[in-house]
């Protein structure tokens, strides 16, 4: 007799509220505050009423003067509405990294490098007590559930940086939250009674969906602050006049696909072995009329083609890349023989898109492009199986179909500096591991193990992702990019061991290590619990000569490579 199934309540979107302690009184107060009091609750569907969105997707946070609310360069998933008090945004110059809890970039000096000769016998991850104290200029206040980092010398900050005050009713952080871009400014509380409503992106998305005023407001800000400069930097719009760019910007549509918190879901799917392209949200379907050119603003998408009952991956595209231009250009030039979309585009994880409608393309953009910049016309070649167009061969030819599927299934295209090992040449000598340990407090920052495809292994080392989900939610700013789009590093001095980055990383590339004092004893807190810090590969950012692992491989079997661009991998595989 078969065993009885386990019956449980189906998981729902709001099983985990942003703030489980949100009270009805607080909700009543919020609903009586602008802009919520002006929203028409009737417009919200019964499934997601306004009150429940606020109850589950928002939380009220209080800050004291000088406490940092968001840091420039951090990735965030939420927007803020000032309810009471004031905040201040740092305009120019930006705050120095040390004031944001980050490491000052710089290479090790000669003597510090040489000191590693005799530091080799020390226990791993040794910290001195003085090093553990907060860096000068930065302090921390522990509240019930969170840590607030504050600027200690506030008058000096105000003196040396141009800032602007924001007061009750102002919104900020919405563009970074919706488009998954790094925060562009640092904002700190400017009064002791600053009270802010933090709305996570799912709630903001729903509020925008059902409230026209908020949608118009956010879209206006988006178009004003972010879109024009983005379009100006996109090659396809280089030949347009300012007026034409503005006209395009007015008519561009925004869309988000997939799950913002894809990393957790991906971990679960990967562990159960059920990552399948067919389950990914479809942005554009093969065979459909091309409604517009898709521009990826953030995230990744898979270009695929039907093959039998499934989908085969032809390529993946990331931020700044286009989809659908070839078809629209073909149709514009060959009105007698129009084609539909040749391939499908599916969101991988989270994808934020701009869609330039076909009409706008035909009227404004395509006429401005020189002939040599227009994509080639599409030639439908009937293969042996029937009328199916022959697949685009570029990416598959470069690295082979098997590796392309492997990189896509494992979300490895996110990597800007993945550790790739050629198992045909790797003698498993572990010189790379020893080199890493020698360079990093006697603790190797990676595992020489990981997913493999044929003789290619992508080791368990930080990928320095293009979309670094590990950087979401760090309370002290300890995990950060070393420079714009640079290496993702952790400042051990300001890491408080909260595990936010460790839990977020979908590739298990971050490890929590228990630290020791100079005598080799583990450090513990007042409750005798060990003090842990997050560690990961920092690409030897402080060392001269590049990553020690790569330099240490005697057989040329290991490289750090950008998988956003398959050319580098292709060259390494077939140099």
């Amino acid at each position, binding site marked *: 007799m078969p065993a009885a199934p386990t019956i449980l309540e189906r998981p729902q979107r709001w099983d985990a509220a942003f703030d489980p302690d949100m009270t009805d009184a607080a909700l009543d107060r919020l609903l009586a505050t602008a802009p919520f009091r002006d929203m028409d609750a009737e417009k919200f569907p019964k499934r997601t009423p306004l009150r429940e969105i606020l109850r589950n997707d928002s939380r009220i946070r209080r800050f004291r003067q000088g406490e940092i609310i968001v840091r420039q360069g951090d990735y965030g998933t939420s927007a803020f509405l000032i309810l009471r008090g004031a905040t201040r945004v740092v305009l120019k110059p930006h705050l120095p990294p040390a004031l944001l809890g980050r490491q000052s970039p710089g290479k090790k000096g000669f003597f510090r490098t040489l000191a590693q000769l005799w530091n080799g016998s020390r226990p791993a991850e040794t910290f001195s007590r003085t090093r553990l104290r907060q860096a000068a200029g930065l302090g921390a206040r522990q509240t019930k559930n969170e840590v607030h980092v504050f600027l200690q010398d506030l008058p000096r900050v105000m003196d040396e940086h141009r800032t602007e005050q924001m007061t009750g009713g102002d919104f900020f952080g919405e563009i970074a939250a919706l488009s998954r871009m790094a925060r562009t400014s640092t904002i700190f509380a400017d009064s002791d009674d600053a009270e802010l409503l933090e709305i996570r992106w799912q709630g903001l998305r729903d509020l925008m969906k059902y409230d026209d005023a908020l949608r118009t407001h956010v879209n206006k800000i988006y178009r004003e602050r972010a879109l024009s400069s983005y379009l100006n930097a996109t090659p396809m719009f280089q030949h347009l006049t300012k007026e034409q760019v503005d006209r395009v910007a007015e008519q561009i549509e925004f869309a988000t696909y997939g799950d913002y918190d894809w990393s957790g879901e991906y971990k679960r799917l990967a562990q159960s072995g059920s990552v399948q392209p067919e389950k990914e949200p479809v942005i554009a379907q093969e065979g459909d009329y091309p409604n517009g050119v898709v521009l990826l603003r953030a995230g990744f998408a898979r270009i695929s083609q039907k093959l039998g009952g499934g989908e085969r991956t032809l390529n993946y595209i990331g931020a700044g890349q286009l989809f659908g231009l070839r078809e629209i250009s073909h149709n514009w030039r060959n009105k007698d023989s129009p084609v539909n979309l040749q391939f499908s585009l599916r969101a991988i994880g989270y994808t934020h898109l701009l869609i330039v409608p076909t009409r706008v393309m035909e009227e404004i953009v395509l006429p401005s492009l020189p002939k040599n910049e227009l994509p080639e016309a599409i030639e439908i070649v009937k293969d042996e199986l029937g009328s199916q167009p022959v697949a685009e061969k570029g990416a598959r030819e470069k690295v082979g179909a098997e590796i392309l599927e492997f990189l896509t299934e494992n979300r490895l295209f996110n990597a800007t500096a993945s550790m790739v090992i050629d*198992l045909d040449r790797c003698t*498993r000598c572990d*010189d790379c591991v020893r080199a890493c340990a020698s360079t990093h407090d006697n603790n190797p920052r990676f595992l020489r*193990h990981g997913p493999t495809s*044929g003789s290619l292994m992508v080791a368990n080392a930080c990928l320095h992702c293009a979309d670094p989900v590990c950087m979401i939610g760090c309370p002290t700013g300890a995990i950060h990019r070393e420079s714009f789009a640079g290496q993702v590093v952790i400042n051990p001095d300001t890491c408080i061991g909260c595990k936010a980055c460790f839990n977020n990383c979908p590739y298990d590339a971050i490890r929590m290590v228990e630290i020791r004092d100079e005598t080799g004893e583990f450090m513990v807190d007042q409750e005798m619990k060990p003090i842990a810090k997050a560690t990961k590969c920092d690409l030897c950012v402080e060392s001269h000569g590049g990553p020690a692992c790569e330099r240490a*491989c*005697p*057989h*040329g079997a290991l490289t750090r490579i950008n998988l956003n661009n398959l050319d580098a991998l292709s060259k390494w595989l077939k140099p």
Partner: protein
Amino acid sequence: MKRFRRQFFLGMLALIAATMAALWLHKRFCALPDYAFLTGWILFAVMLVLTFFNARKKLPFLALGKAETWLQIHIYLGFFTVVLFLIHLNFRAPHGWFEITLAWLFALVSASGVVGLFFSRTLPRRLATRGGEAIFEKIPALRHALKTGAENLALGKEAKSPVIAEFYTRQLAPFFEGPKNFWLHTFESRRPVSALLAELDDLRRFTNEAERATLDKLAALVRQKDGLDYHRALQLTLKLWLFVHIPLTYGLLVFTVLHIVLVFGFSGGVQ
């Protein structure tokens, strides 16, 4: 890979050119009075450069260039050292127990280097082809997990087959107990695992459907254990040759220094 072919081509070209130049110089200058001292010092200097490769490996945090470049230099300079050694000997056989020991040490270091190079270039490909990557230090733990799994299948609370239990105790328990067939794996022989799997297959005649399912699971564990033994054998070989090459190198360096002291002690030094 083209990169490696290019490395090989350039290395060989440099080696041939250096050998021809050395032989020409030897022919031209071998009659010089202190010729043996000159070639001896050159040989010693080149040997020191070769040993610096190991020092480079111990100092990965210093920007001393890529280990890959160092290894290429080590390989081709190593081959060239053989030519220099023969020139230093003036192409005659060594005599006296000290000189013979020194020559033997040199030959063994060179031979172990060549063997190591052969292993480094052939065994990784075999490991990759076999698949199932395992970190060497974790192999005992993985083996233990396989042994526990097999033991539970054959002798655990759920196991009810005396045929399988008897076969496990007699044949499989020793197989899962520790690493097996080192030499056969090194020489790519699958005879033992094929024999074991054939014996497992024979048991199907005496078992019912449920027991056959257990036999299938046991066969899968046997294959995994065999793969683990294969990885251990080849990875151990890749590590062990260095335990021959490096101590012999130290021995050679000690004898070389003694040789220099003796030469200077009994010749009165270079005048």
